[in-house]
């Protein structure tokens, strides 16, 4: 995690963040869908916990964290937990605090040992009262 200083422009594709995310939410436990239509928007990654039937939405963004926050906040209407996943260079304490204050979780993606990208949870999502049960029901339908 970095602090303060503006991060340099990254040339990492959002799609590239998907593989480490999959390792964080393993297939044995989570069913995964990408680009899931949601009330006129698209959820980058939607996961269904096979055990609890709870939905997890993830907004992938390399660097535009404000935009990510705005988009992810809407997914709180349909998913039980919502994360913003950012490239580590664009994660800071202040940004994590801002996203947490809206109930969003934050996932940091960085290069780990043997140049393998890894994802880890920097902040867990908070429980909110924003869920619309109809939307959650519709989103579960994506996994049928």
């Amino acid at each position, binding site marked *: 995690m970095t602090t303060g200083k503006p991060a340099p422009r990254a040339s990492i594709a959002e799609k590239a963040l998907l593989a480490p995310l999959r390792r964080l939410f393993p297939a044995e436990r989570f069913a995964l869908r990408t680009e899931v239509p949601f009330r006129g928007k698209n959820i980058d990654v939607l996961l269904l916990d096979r055990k609890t039937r709870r939905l997890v939405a993830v907004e992938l963004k390399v660097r535009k964290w*404000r935009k990510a*926050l*705005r988009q992810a*906040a809407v997914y709180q*209407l349909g998913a039980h937990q919502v994360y913003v996943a950012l490239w580590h260079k664009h994660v800071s304490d202040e940004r994590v605090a*801002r996203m947490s204050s809206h109930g969003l979780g934050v996932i940091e993606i960085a290069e780990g040992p043997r140049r393998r990208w890894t994802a880890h949870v920097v902040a867990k999502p908070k429980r909110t009262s*924003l869920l*619309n049960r*109809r939307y959650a029901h519709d989103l579960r339908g994506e996994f049928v």
Partner: protein
Amino acid sequence: MKPGNGNPGPLMLLRPLSGNKRLLRAAEGLYHGLHVPVTVADFMADFVLETDKPFIADPSTYLFVLRPEQLRDPETRAIRPVHRKLAVGFGAPFENVLGRRALTVADFPETGTAADEAVQRVLAHQKSKFAGQMNLPLDPYYSKYLLYADQAPTDAAPPPTGPAYLIPPYFPFRGVDDPWYALNLRLAERALDVRAEGEPVAPTIHVTAKALEDAGTVSRVAEDYRARAFDAFFLWVNDLPEERATALRLRGLMHLVRGLSADGRRVFKLYGGYFSMLLFAQGLSGFTCGLGQGAWKNSYAYGPGGGGKPKPKFYVGPLHRSLEIVDAERLLREHESLRCACKTCQEVYGSNFDRFAEMGGDGHCEEHFLYARRAEARAILDGGVDACLSGLAGTVREFGDMNPLVLVNSLRTWREVLTEA
């Protein structure tokens, strides 16, 4: 400014879509009049007649300075029938250039009768399209439609026939040195000569937003137009969404409104939002808008893509802006102070936000917008603009700069501009 008795407040002229007819029939008391393009389909023209409201028939002559391909059907590549019909109605030079090139200033020669004849046909087309409609005046506003009065008015005089004002041909201009500016003025002036006796003429001043940044341009435009015997003015600042406009441009707009209305003549803004309502205290008589959207327009962005039925948007009263329904739901669920208690909201979802998405159907968002607008107009009438500006300050204080989900920058800018006034 606190309007006196009988003052209807800022007049709202709606730009209806065909899907709004049922709602507007039922919501007679929630709007003052209509703004329709003269290209409107005949069934919509009939609807305009049916409403018994004052209206303006926008000649939309700006279409003819666009690139010809913008007027073509994207699939067939043929000029759209609606534009062909309009060109035929207007005659030369509109008809001559259609599909070949954009109009130029030279198409309206200063000598001879061609320009006069063109102006005459543009005015006549506005009347003939709506033949049979009573001319219900906006000045004074036809008192049958005093929306916020407690009692039915008694002084309604039988009006003549036709639109509330006739609009001379108009085209966008970038500044007072732009040849289109001089042409606009000349054509509008000719309209005063060729109109029939008693027909009110109000030119449309279709200026770029950037031109408002120059104080000299603003005062010159106001002086030039005010120096001529027009009955009122329509102001269309191209591509100026009020919630994203800079203070500099909004200040320019305010000064232009003040300048044009300095001698008491009416000024209406085409495509306006809440900032336009607040300009009431600066001399703006009214504005036009769609139902929940269409509070700004870029004439250069016309066709061939786009079009189609716009997605309904929910007007968030305290923020004075429309949002996509799902974005609005997110905000309203979290912030009680942004919620709405209008009749429509009560009936459709009440306190059950799981039903909020139903606002997207059956014209609910549009009806809610009319109630929200009435509440805004009442607030201006009852408390005055100063109280409304205090309300904006309160919302800014509540959400501040640190909440990227609730955008209040525009409220701060509007207040700053109008407080300086």
